[in-house]
């Protein structure tokens, strides 16, 4: 019996990472290593204005004085920043303007990833900014969005075409001094997405950025800046994958969101970076700073994340609730299987009156995975009537994995109501057997149970991606029967 179980386990764990292929394309890479010259070189490659270079240099000088944060419940191997390539751009023949200019290899790559960029095959109702390594390859639907006054383009383009908007909002939520990885990003970021929704406009389609790492020995450092002007609305989705490699690759991104009065931004992430192999070899180090500010009254920012990939995840999408009656939400499912580690959560900073926040975190650990929730709820003195509800659940599969919860609560206003609930549960063999007895295989049983457990969060995703996320959850847990 014991042996049978082992055999089933073995068969199941061979579930493969589907996106591990490499695109063979000529790539413009700069030499390994990081220095002021490298920062200047990146800026020059992008033909940036002086103010952008100044920003980078300030950040770089500051970064040199910083140390990697050590407070997370993570074992991070030493990272040699002189051994990383900080800029790698797939060579496109002419500059991508119309689709016919995009290299066919790149079109094929994104097709394979399920992100068709071609005019005919495009996802309906979703505009995509496709980023490979250090540059944006193509942004779809931009013309039809422009008719509504919506700006949706690569970050580099925004620096050229909309410098005043970029200058006004860049680093206004995540200052260049914020933390080790955000500061590094500020110095060397190469591309990313920029989005501006004008006053009173409801964006009629999902906007999304798809991040792909392709080149080896390369780090990806992208920046996303999303501005929702008064009474506007946008739903934004981010997806990511990378080839299977034995080396670890660094991904250090920054996302900033600004909502003005009455505006709402829904930001969803399906993170499926290569997680490393069964022995914990390879995989992406995902060190990301995401933060939004509800600047105006009655505005709302909602983060939803499904984190199944990466060898290490370090990420705390947060909300600064400055406007009165503003609302922050964080819905998260994080899976760690095999030797994956995640330290993820959120910060909800209540500044305005009657601000509300909701945190729902569902951690799933299997194999030797380590999964930590880290969350801060801070209510400042003036935040009369602030409310927070937090729910942190952990689900364990097997007995070699770990789940940890680090909730921090700081309340300086006596009228605030802050509630925190936490549970830890295990997928029981009796639950699996019950499913088996009805004819459901163990693999499908785990899929059912895990998706049931994560349903509250999955339901927050845009429909098209909820199905994908469900499949991803099941695949990432294959072979983890405890």
């Amino acid at each position, binding site marked *: *019996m014991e042996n049978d*179980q082992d055999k089933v386990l073995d068969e199941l764990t061979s579930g493969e990472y589907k996106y591990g292929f490499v695109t063979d394309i000529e790539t413009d890479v700069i030499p390994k290593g990081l220095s002021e010259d490298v920062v200047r070189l990146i800026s020059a490659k992008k033909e940036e204005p002086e103010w952008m270079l100044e920003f980078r240099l300030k950040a770089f000088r500051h970064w040199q004085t910083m140390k990697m944060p050590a407070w997370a419940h993570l074992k991070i191997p030493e990272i040699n920043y002189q051994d990383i390539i900080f800029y790698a751009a797939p060579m496109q023949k002419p500059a991508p303007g119309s689709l016919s200019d995009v290299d066919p290899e790149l079109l094929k790559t994104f097709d394979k990833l399920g992100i068709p960029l071609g005019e005919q095959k495009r996802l309906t109702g979703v505009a995509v900014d496709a980023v490979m390594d250090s540059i944006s390859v193509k942004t779809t639907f931009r013309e039809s969005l422009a008719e509504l006054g919506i700006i949706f383009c690569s970050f580099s383009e925004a620096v050229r075409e909309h410098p005043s908007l970029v200058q006004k909002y860049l680093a206004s939520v995540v200052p260049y001094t914020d933390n080790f990885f955000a500061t590094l990003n500020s110095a060397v970021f190469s591309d990313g997405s920029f989005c501006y929704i004008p006053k009173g406009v409801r964006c009629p389609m999902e906007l999304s950025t798809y991040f792909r790492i392709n080149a080896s020995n390369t780090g990806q450092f992208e920046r996303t800046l999303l501005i929702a002007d008064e009474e506007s609305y946008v739903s934004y989705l981010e997806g990511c994958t990378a080839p299977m490699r034995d080396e670890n690759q660094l991904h250090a991104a920054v996302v900033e969101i600004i909502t003005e009065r009455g505006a709402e931004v829904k930001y969803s992430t399906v993170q499926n970076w290569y997680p490393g192999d069964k022995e914990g070899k390879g995989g992406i180090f995902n060190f990301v700073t995401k933060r939004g500010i509800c600047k105006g009254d009655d505005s709302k920012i909602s983060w939803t994340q499904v984190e199944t990939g990466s060898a290490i995840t370090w990420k705390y999408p947060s909300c600064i609730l400055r406007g009165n009656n503003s609302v922050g939400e964080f819905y998260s499912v994080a899976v760690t299987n095999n030797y994956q580690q995640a330290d993820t959560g959120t910060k909800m900073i209540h500044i305005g009156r009657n601000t509300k926040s909701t945190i729902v975190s569902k951690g799933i650990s299997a194999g030797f995975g380590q999964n930590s929730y880290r969350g801060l709820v801070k209510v400042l003195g003036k935040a009369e009537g602030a409310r927070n509800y937090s729910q942190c659940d952990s689900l364990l599969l097997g007995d070699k994995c770990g789940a940890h919860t680090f909730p921090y609560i700081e309340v300086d206003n006596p009228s605030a109501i802050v509630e925190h609930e936490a549970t830890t*549960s295990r997928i*029981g063999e*009796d*639950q699996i*057997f*019950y*499913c*088996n*007895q*009805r*004819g*459901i*295989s*163990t693999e*499908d049983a785990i899929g*059912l*149970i895990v*998706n*049931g*457990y*994560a*349903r509250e969060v999955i339901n927050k995703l845009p429909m098209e991606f909820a199905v994908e996320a469900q499949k991803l959850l099941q695949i990432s847990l294959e072979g983890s029967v405890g």
Partner: protein
Amino acid sequence: MKSEFLLQIKELKATIDNKEILKGLNLEVKPGEIHAIMGPNGSGKSTLANVLTGRDIATVTHGSVTFEGKDLLVMSPEERAREGIFLSFQYPIEIPGVSMVNFMKTAINEQRKHRGLEPLSASEFLRQMREKKELVEIDSALTNRSVNEGFSGGEKKKNEIFQMAMLEPRLALLDETDSGLDIDALRIVANGVNKIRRTDTSVIVITHYQRLLDYIVPDYVHVMYDGRIVRTAGPELALELEERGYDWIRKEADVNEETWTTDRK
């Protein structure tokens, strides 16, 4: 050649933690028959149900079990279910977050796939859900909830019978489905079983009490004691047990065992 028996258990022995629980059990069930297994607590009735459904709490050390002539013991639990074995659990399991609808749809379609059938259409599935719910007089809200989560004891048992109705098994094992039920629930459960049963469905009713057998009339009553079936007769045996309790069986069985062991030596 196809066996005349749906289920055939020969000299079955099984251990839990190296302790022998089933000690050479024989049982033969033909299509359409109803068998009752009665016996005191701890005699191994649930263990028998576990062994038949492939739960690996117990280890089979001896004997054979065939189902429709096929070796049952080499099959995985889900294969056995797909072959048509259904267990109404003594203690149904809660699965938070998994809706009954999703659970049943997955189960039915897995079983259909096994039989080479297409998945049920959503409308046909929902029609069957409605129909079977009425059959077992189940409160409609039940099926919108998570599997057994927050169900009362009676609701859980009714839910087991509902699932049985949906899955239409060849062999249903009811492990103390009657215990903890009030008389109304008992009647509903028993009626459900009777209505659902096709002419070739066999049922093994594991029970403590005669009262369920007033509603589900068995062809045979077996008394299980200390890992064996020690007595088999018609429905009248159940009445006798009700009147006299298990003590006389216990005494008789103990004597039998003495003689049996000395005979062997």
